[in-house]
């Protein structure tokens, strides 16, 4: 008994779109970050599903790398959000808009 790979792809695409939707609609920097994490995990779902499908481990190992990098990204992101809060007293990503045009 195995689930066809198409389903995983659909799942990951749904996750990806959910994440994208979050990015486009949320103004809170933390939500933005979470949405990005969802998108990254969508990729992870794909990777692991395809690794299973193709029968090699590359995808799985790469998923681990992706997770590690995602964590690092979050760490940097949180640091930036912290200084953002200190400077703007807010974590709304639409507030800093002094530089434009």
């Amino acid at each position: 008994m195995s689930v066809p790979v198409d389903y995983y792809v659909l799942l990951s695409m749904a996750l990806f779109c959910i994440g994208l939707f979050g990015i486009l609609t949320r103004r809170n920097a933390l939500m933005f970050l979470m949405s990005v994490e969802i998108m990254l995990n969508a990729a992870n779902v794909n990777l692991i599903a395809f690794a299973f499908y193709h029968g090699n481990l590359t995808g799985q190992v790469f998923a681990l790398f992706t997770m590690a990098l995602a964590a690092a990204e979050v760490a940097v992101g949180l640091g930036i959000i912290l200084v953002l809060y200190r400077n703007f007293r807010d974590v709304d990503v639409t507030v800093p808009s002094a530089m434009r045009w």
Partner: protein
Amino acid sequence: MNEWIAIGALALVGILIPLGMMSVSYLLRPSVPETSKRATYESGEVPTGGTRIRFNIQYYMVALLFVVFDIETVLLFPWAVVYRDALESGEVTLMQALGPMLLFVAILVVGLAWAWRNGAVQWAKSPRQVELEANRP
């Protein structure tokens, strides 16, 4: 499709049980509003403020460090899985199998040492440090 029906049923039961318990308790309990009940619960102590307080920045620091170092250990995992097999197969020497991971850990140690020395894991500053900070331009 049989297997899928079982899974669906299990999920249904899993959702129904907590919902049922909550609704039963809502129906059975008496409702007596009182200010002390609405107050923030602080292990029986008299609360000193609202729930929306700002945490010490150190919480974030530690949390960030934790996330990073925690996830780095994930990378140890595939290595650990193949380590023994690799050695037993005799195709790689001990150094070739162990060396890269030691290097990896060493780099992590440099990072950790740096974070430590820069006070990322220090909960409070010692008087000497405070003094040093003050003297710094």
